């Protein structure tokens, strides 16, 4: 007898569960939950704190704020940041000053921990919100963050 009551209960509870799914089947609009990802690139906006990759903003005079203090390089847990620096003469004061030659960023090594950006005293590097970082060639993941010919903004000291 319990054999038949088991079958009855099985079907009954199955239908109870299906009442939930059936309700969603009837009420939800098409595409209510999932995102149509490659088609919605134009409208897809990431949150402002989203950690896509590290970038160095430049202003219209091709000037950045990096003084080459190497705090980000020290803070990085896995060597994603390498700073190639040199010393030169500061035009304003005539004193010797450190400046960056290349700010090399290995996106392929980066774990997006955000410690470099926390460590930066001059806010020279920030997060960019781009999310399509895949490339066909991994050497493209090694980036030089300062643009060619750029120099440090006047008055930025660490």
């Amino acid at each position, binding site marked *: 007898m319990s054999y038949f009551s*088991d079958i009855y*209960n*099985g079907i*009954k*509870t*199955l239908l*109870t*569960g299906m*009442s*939930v*799914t059936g309700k969603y089947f009837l009420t939800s609009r098409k595409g209510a*939950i999932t995102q149509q990802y490659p088609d919605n690139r134009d409208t897809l906006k*990431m*949150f402002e*704190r*989203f*950690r896509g990759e590290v970038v160095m903003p430049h202003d219209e005079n091709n000037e950045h704020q990096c003084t080459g203090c190497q705090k980000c390089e020290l*803070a990085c*847990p896995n060597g994603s940041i390498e700073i190639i620096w040199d010393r030169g003469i500061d035009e304003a004061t005539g004193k010797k000053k450190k400046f960056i030659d290349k700010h090399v960023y290995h996106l392929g090594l980066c*774990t*997006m*921990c*955000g*410690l470099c950006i*926390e*460590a930066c005293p001059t806010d020279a590097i920030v*997060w960019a919100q781009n999310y399509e970082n895949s490339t066909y060639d991994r050497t493209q993941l090694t980036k030089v963050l300062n643009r060619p010919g750029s120099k440090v903004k006047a008055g930025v000291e660490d």
Partner: protein
Amino acid sequence: METTAVKSNFKSEEYFINMGPQHPATHGVLRLLLTIDGEIIKKVEPDLGYIHRSIEKMCERDSYQQIVHLTDRMDYLSSHINNEAVCLTVENALQLEIPDRVQVIRTILSELTRIASHCLWWGVMGMDVGALTTYFYGFRDREMINDIFEETCGARLTMNYNIPGGLMFDIHPNFVKRTKEFITHFKTKLPEYDTLLTGNIIFQKRTKGVGILSKEDAISFGASGPVGRASGYSCDVRKHHPYSAYDRVTFNEALKTEGDTFARYQVRIQEMWESMAIIEQLIDNIPEGEHKVATNAVIKLPKGEFYQKVETARGELGVYIISTGTKNPYRVKFRSPGFSNLSLLNHIAVGGKIGDLVASMATLDLVIPDIDR
């Protein structure tokens, strides 16, 4: 006469099969060596090390700020709680006074992490026992929490939002609103979980009386978290050794005494309700104040040994740091809940069927990177 002779000669042979390392029910790269007799399991031997990254050794190389982001990669479903564990250890060693605001925010985020982890577990649990629909429902609600994390912390899974001394930055202005929205949303959705799966007779037949773990065994195997609590072993670190803001909220420890797979299931569902209760008590009055206290750029712990345990979504995570007074730890040991919970798998699976093994493994809620580290 003839038939009895045949019967006495009839014997089955034990044989040996591999389950994993790429089996969907092992939830990662866990390899189980099964000795089975027909469908009856005689022995389960877990084989570990497929995703070992030597996190403990890497911690010896890193500074105390850098250790935190490695713990994201252990139990990735409760990464915020892992981060908190390391930060609490370092803060206790430095005897820092952590602002109330930080403690409350950490607690809220921890509980959100717990709900997110249990949502994913619930979806996968259903899928392991053959109900595909639960997966979509679990992930739908988890997505809302992921959005909260993405907006406030900047990442969805490996947040790295805690730093020794507080939080990396203050919460997003939308955080409170979104969390409240989620709580109201999830309060209507959690009963659906029960309708969909808990009350289902087929599901109950698969789980009730399967993989029974007694209280004594739970203690001797070092089970913690929902696995221990389903066997009647009161082991909630939040209750017995409160950290952060857990001493200023009231909540019930979800306890069951049956110790079977269904009890572990019920404990986790109950924990989601309790987590929501904790968030509700805290979300309306987050104290004003600083989001971090200043620490030295190079943190040096005093010479000695430091231990802190927290309750992750899977159980008790312990962080043990030996310091010699330099900027790097001499040794870091993580006591991960998954490792102890996996050790009792052989005990609860022997004598059952392979289907029972999958069901009981689903409620152990193993995360393999947590076991291998």
